[in-house]
């Protein structure tokens, strides 16, 4: 199927009124949770997931994806005005965004981040349209060995390209794999780790695990914390927002560089917007002639990372839609949503469900246009939102969480699960164990095991099969390089020295 035909199908799907409506709901909710510190895209998507059982799967995905990229737009607002990232990925935007607000340039900063987000997303969508079908075509040849290798690469990349301790991140990915083992073994029907609890026969519910680790844990961590002081913005006038000529010149190249970096990082399986915006900032600072301006309100310091994190979010759909391997933990939840709706993600998706694939991609354009409107003319609305005290919000969020997990299966048991993972998530956060790898491992674990066992059967128990098939060998070698960077401290030190010197 050629590109043009695909775009036509996509337009037909994405421009129907109900799809437009769900896309709008998605990006609005996304901006909302992005703006509010304390509720991330992941929590919001898992919260919305049970609601989508009742709607068409394409609409459901479009809405959930809208929450994801919408949150990237919103995340920068709190970073700039409160010095508090609305989403974890917007942390970098604080570095130069808040100083700009202190200099009274908040409107300019908000405008620049919105425009950069738009440019970054738009260019990355073109890449998705170009690459995803090609990679999917190529991936039709994949056997179980290749799938095992590429999933492994995703898990390893996600846990080694991390800001904290790689041991902790790796341990958490494996913990996630372990959680994925709970339930009935599909090959033999053997119950594993169910301990006689009937509700566990199907394993932990994805919604409950995600909402526990990201929703409840986040709430516990935020209760009783002093709220950030909102920086006075006053009335935001359009004239204050519009960059002058030299400011345009300042952000032009950084935006494109950020988009490039973000698209590349995002397209790698397992690595998400957090790493992308950090790398973009580091690169920008390294090549700048005046690095001392960074941290004191350099426009490049917000435009490149913002372009990068939005580009990476869109590019994360390349491996997701072409291979069925999520490019990021949030996309992993989207993948989980597809599976719940009875759609098998993988290279056949584009041919089997063209209206879903192309509809989703065209909806990215539509959604980003809506976000531009939501985030420039209507920015004042979101700023007001930041004045709502957090302690009035979280009881409501807790109720949504309880009802949300309950509605997934009409079972009270899942409420206990969500609480359990909430406490685990809070303890992990206290001790520096990242939660996103857990989710990635949990979602990909069953797939990993399935492909491993199938590959073993086909190769008659030859474990070297993963290195004998060329494509699989390439993925395995890349995984090993990532792992080596953890276990060979010298290599890692050299890598992180370059990173640390630029991040501060």
């Amino acid at each position, binding site marked *: 199927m050629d590109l043009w035909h695909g775009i036509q199908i996509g337009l037909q799907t994405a421009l129907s009124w109900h799809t437009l409506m769900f896309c709008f709901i998605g990006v609005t909710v996304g901006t909302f949770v992005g703006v509010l510190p304390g509720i991330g895209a992941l929590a919001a998507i898992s919260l919305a997931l049970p609601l989508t059982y009742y709607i068409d799967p394409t609409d459901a995905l479009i809405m959930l994806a809208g929450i994801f990229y919408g949150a990237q737009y919103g995340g920068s607002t709190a970073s700039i005005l409160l010095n508090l990232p609305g989403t974890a990925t917007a942390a970098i935007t604080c570095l130069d965004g808040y100083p700009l607000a202190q200099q009274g340039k908040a409107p300019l900063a908000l405008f620049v981040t919105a425009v950069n987000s738009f440019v970054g997303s738009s260019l990355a969508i073109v890449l998705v349209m170009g690459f995803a079908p090609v990679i999917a075509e190529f991936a039709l040849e994949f056997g179980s060995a290749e799938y095992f290798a590429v999933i492994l690469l995703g898990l390893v990349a996600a846990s080694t390209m991390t800001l904290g301790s790689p041991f902790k991140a790796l341990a958490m990915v494996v913990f996630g794999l372990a959680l994925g083992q709970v339930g009935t073994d599909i090959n033999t029907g053997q119950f594993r780790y169910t301990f006689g609890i009937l509700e566990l026969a199907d394993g932990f519910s994805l919604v409950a695990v995600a909402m526990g680790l990201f929703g409840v844990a986040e709430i516990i961590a935020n*209760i009783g914390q002093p709220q950030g002081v909102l920086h006075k913005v006053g009335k935001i006038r359009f004239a204050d927002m519009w960059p002058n000529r030299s400011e345009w010149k300042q952000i032009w190249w950084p935006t494109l560089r950020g988009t490039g970096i973000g698209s590349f990082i995002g397209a790698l399986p397992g690595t998400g917007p957090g790493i992308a915006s950090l790398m973009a900032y580091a690169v920008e600072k390294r090549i700048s002639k005046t690095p001392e301006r960074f941290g004191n309100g350099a426009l490049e310091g917000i435009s490149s990372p913002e372009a990068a994190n939005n580009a990476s979010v869109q590019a994360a759909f390349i491996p997701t839609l072409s291979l069925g391997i999520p490019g990021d933990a949030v996309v992993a939840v989207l993948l989980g949503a597809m599976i719940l709706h009875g759609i098998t993600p993988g290279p056949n998706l584009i041919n089997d469900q063209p209206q879903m694939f192309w509809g989703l991609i065209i909806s990215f354009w539509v959604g980003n246009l809506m976000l531009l409107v939501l985030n420039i003319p209507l920015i004042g609305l979101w700023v007001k939102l930041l004045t709502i005290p957090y302690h009035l919000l979280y*009881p*409501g969020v807790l109720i949504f969480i309880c*009802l949300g997990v*309950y509605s997934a299966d009409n079972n009270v048991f899942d*409420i206990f699960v969500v609480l359990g993972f909430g406490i685990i998530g809070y303890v992990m956060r206290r001790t520096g164990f990242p939660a996103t790898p857990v989710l990635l491992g949990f979602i990909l674990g069953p797939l990993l095991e399935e492909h491993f066992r199938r590959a073993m059967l086909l190769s008659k128990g030859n474990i070297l099969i993963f290195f004998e098939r060329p494509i699989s060998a390439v993925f395995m070698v890349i995984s090993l390089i990532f792992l080596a960077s953890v276990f060979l401290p010298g290599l890692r030190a050299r890598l992180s020295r370059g990173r640390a010197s630029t991040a501060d």
Partner: protein
Amino acid sequence: MRRPMPSPVLPVPERKLPKPSLTRYLPGLTVVAFGLAMASVAVTYPLGSLLRPGPGFFPLVIALILAALGVGVMVEARAALPPEDREPFAWRAVLCTSAGILLFAFLVERIGYVPASLLLIGTAALGERDNDWIMMAVVAAFMAFFGTAVFIWGLGLPIRAFGAS
């Protein structure tokens, strides 16, 4: 060079010793323990062989890798600087949130959504030190209505607004 004494009268504060080493190793130790516990269960399932891995094979491998990574976390903790003082563990937030959620879970099918949600909000709100209880009542009333409208009337969850389902 010696540091100047702050004042001859005031006792010089002792330099803070690193926390007892056990707490430092506790996170890694927990991971190791979890891995070993998981492995001990995995060996009770049929292991199979490489040619035909059984249901116990993959969990056993995962469990052993997890335990090994736990050792890695412990080794790393040895080399790391003692953690700087952070805010204390939020016992109050954990307790109030847990109590609220548990109440909701136990009661929602017995006394209905509206009273259960009010109990959840009230209990969870105790986690905050000073609350604006009037605003909280407004939030609770809103959530009671909104939840009923969306989840019970709209989505048709098998629970009732009031009373056992």
